[in-house]
């Protein structure tokens, strides 16, 4: 399928199997899982079967799987649960987090929490800095697994080890939450051995439907703010989105059915891209290059055409039927977050302003990648010289 789509990190297209699962479940399980009659109990049984499947795929216990409305909601439930605490403490967010984590800063601060920023070096959270931030007042640490712009994979297990060592010294428990939305299906990891207390997943990032996700956490370790009929053990009250959950379960099953094969395919595409611009005079790769030791998601690579604001390059590519994500706006005063991120990374403002995220998936073909490379080279050739940056 040559659809020129290179924005998989924003969303992926729902797979045929997931669409089928959605339609089938929608008609096969019309009842409300909370209803006590036959239709209700059929829906409830099916829902729990989905839960067991998801749990098995993630190698965790079914009673730690809670269905939500997506990654943002999963993050929100975990973070906002801290508001129940009688004495607010400190909360640590890495500066690599997605807005669905970072944007909680204001409400937390308004409720008396001190929100600390964990710095990063070249796209990786600085664990030495984490060590200095930890004290007896810290209540929550948020560290994502795969960074959504750079594709860097964080050493969450080591961060958790640091936190646990600290806990042993102070005797005070710290909740570690991991936003794994960009990681699932893109990098191999074992959730249980990461040792986090909670984690967030989103179905539409792995060819499932939008509006469905998972919150992983130990039973009773989190209390949600919203109230309702007690569904999902009260963590996410509201009648369950059975069809969506069915489709997500199917998409996740597909993901792990031939995981290694997919990873290999995506890795080949990554190498193809990197080889095409490694020596290029204009195109700069901002994400780390892929090798045996690099901790990265192969399917997310950010490059820059320093000759053009990324938004302009995005529009030129879009007109050629190639869809990428632009980091920053073509504006005189926009200081977008991603642009800042790249400047933290050590790139100058032009390079940061020309940042383009290319993200792909298992159905992306080498031909599509070749088309994109050709287009990027054309742009570099056309604009690299005629347009001098002001």
């Amino acid at each position, binding site marked *: 399928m040559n659809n020129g789509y290179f924005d998989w990190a924003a969303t992926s297209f729902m797979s045929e199997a997931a669409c089928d699962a959605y339609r089938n479940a929608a008609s096969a399980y019309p009842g409300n899982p909370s209803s006590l009659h036959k239709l209700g109990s059929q829906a409830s049984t099916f829902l729990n079967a989905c839960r067991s499947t998801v749990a098995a795929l993630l190698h965790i216990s079914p009673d730690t799987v809670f269905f939500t409305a997506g990654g943002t909601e999963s993050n929100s439930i975990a973070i906002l649960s801290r508001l129940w605490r009688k004495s607010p403490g400190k909360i640590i967010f890495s500066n690599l987090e997605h807005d669905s984590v970072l944007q909680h800063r204001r409400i937390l601060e308004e409720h008396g929490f001190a929100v600390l920023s964990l710095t990063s070096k070249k796209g990786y959270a600085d664990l030495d800095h984490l060590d200095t931030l930890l004290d007896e007042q810290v209540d929550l640490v948020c560290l994502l697994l795969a960074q959504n712009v750079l594709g860097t994979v964080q050493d969450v297990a080591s961060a958790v080890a640091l936190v646990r060592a600290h806990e042993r010294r102070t005797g005070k428990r710290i909740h570690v939450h991991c936003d794994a939305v960009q990681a699932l299906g893109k990098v191999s990891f074992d959730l249980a051995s990461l040792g986090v207390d909670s984690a967030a997943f989103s179905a539409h990032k792995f060819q499932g439907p939008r509006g469905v996700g998972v919150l992983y956490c130990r039973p009773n370790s989190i209390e949600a703010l919203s109230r309702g009929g007690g569904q999902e053990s009260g963590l996410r009250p509201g009648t369950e989105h059975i069809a969506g959950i069915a489709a997500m379960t199917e998409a996740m099953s597909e993901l792990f059915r031939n995981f290694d094969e997919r990873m290999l395919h995506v890795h080949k595409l990554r190498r193809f891209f990197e080889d095409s611009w490694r020596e290029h005079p204009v195109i700069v790769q901002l994400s780390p290059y892929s090798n045996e030791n690099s901790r990265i998601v192969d399917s997310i690579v950010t490059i820059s055409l320093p000759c053009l604001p990324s938004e302009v390059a995005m529009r030129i590519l879009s007109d050629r039927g190639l869809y990428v994500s632009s980091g920053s706006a073509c*504006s*005189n005063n926009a200081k977008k977050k991603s642009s800042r991120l790249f400047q933290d990374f050590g790139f100058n403002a032009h390079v940061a302003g020309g940042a383009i995220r290319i993200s792909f998936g298992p159905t992306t073909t080498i031909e599509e990648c070749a088309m994109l490379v050709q287009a990027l080279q054309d742009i570099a050739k056309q604009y690299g010289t005629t347009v001098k940056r*002001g």
Partner: protein
Amino acid sequence: MDYTLYLVRLGEISLKGLNRDFFEGKLKTNIKTKLHPYHSRIAKQKGRLFVYVEDQAPDTLVREALSSSFGIVGFSKAIQCEKDFETIKSEAMRLVDETWKIDQVRSFKVETRRADKTFPMKSYDISAELGHLILERYHTLSVDVHHPDRILYVEIRDSAYLYTDDESGPGGLPVGTAGRGMLMLSGGIDSPVAAYRMAKRGLRMEAVYFHAYPYTSQQAMDKVAALARILSRYCLRIVLHVVPFTDVQLHIKAHSRDEETTLLMRACMMQIATMIAAERDCSAIVTGESLSQVASQTLESIRFTDGMTDLPVFRPLIGMDKEEIITTARLIGTYETSILPYEDCCVIFSPKHPLVKPRLDSIRKSYELLGIERLLKEAVEKTERILCS
């Protein structure tokens, strides 16, 4: 067909001498256009328009049309009835019942004008009788002839006319009475306000927008069209000319010194606007420039860009500061659209240090050296038009 009557007060127009028919005629056409598709008849009487609108027309639509028509100082919904005092009494009470929120009114007065002196009662007596009736019905009210909360107006002319509220209109002169101008409309805060100001003096406008795709986005273009649509409320339908400007900008970028690019670009815009103005029978250029607001709006810069057109350039905001401009932008409803984050000029065409005080001879020479006439003509030829209403 039944009609609802609105009385419209005219301001400056009523001071006009022999030209008054022209101004009133234009205003009538403008009002009828705005009320379309609802039918309306408009009669003129000294200093007034009597606007009869098909009663199917929603009151909110009529008020919206009248409150945005330049030339109108005030208006009110009115009742026209027979010149018979019994009828006048019952209609007056109906009007008060319907339009006064009695719990919010403490005082009132009745003001009567008797143009028809054959009417048997004198103005004072009419007012007194009606006032008495109202007091009898509503015990909480009192009469205050100096600072009343509400006023009931009674006019005895060819018929009796009764009205209460006088909503204010926007003043000014009817759009179209001052000729036609070409507005340089960007996506910013200022140029829509400039359009409003000029429309208030009766200028009918078309607008020109410089589109530099892919350096500026389709969203920026849509935003300008949205602004033109908002403005059409005051300016009537606006023809928006979208000029493909990318080649011109690239040419300037490649063939001039960085600090001169902004001014040369402004000069090209002025030339193109003038060319389109000639095609479209417009005899003025309108811009949102405000003295010294940015580099291209200093006296020296304006002197240069002014020389790029033989038309008068109206800059109604020249002496206003940003806060005043923003206040008007909020008032006319363009502010929220103007601040949408779609830039109308790409950062690569904005030099870090643009020329602030260009020397006229040297910047003119730079412009001549560009040799850009052919590109400007091409841009005009490829210009597309959007009707915004």
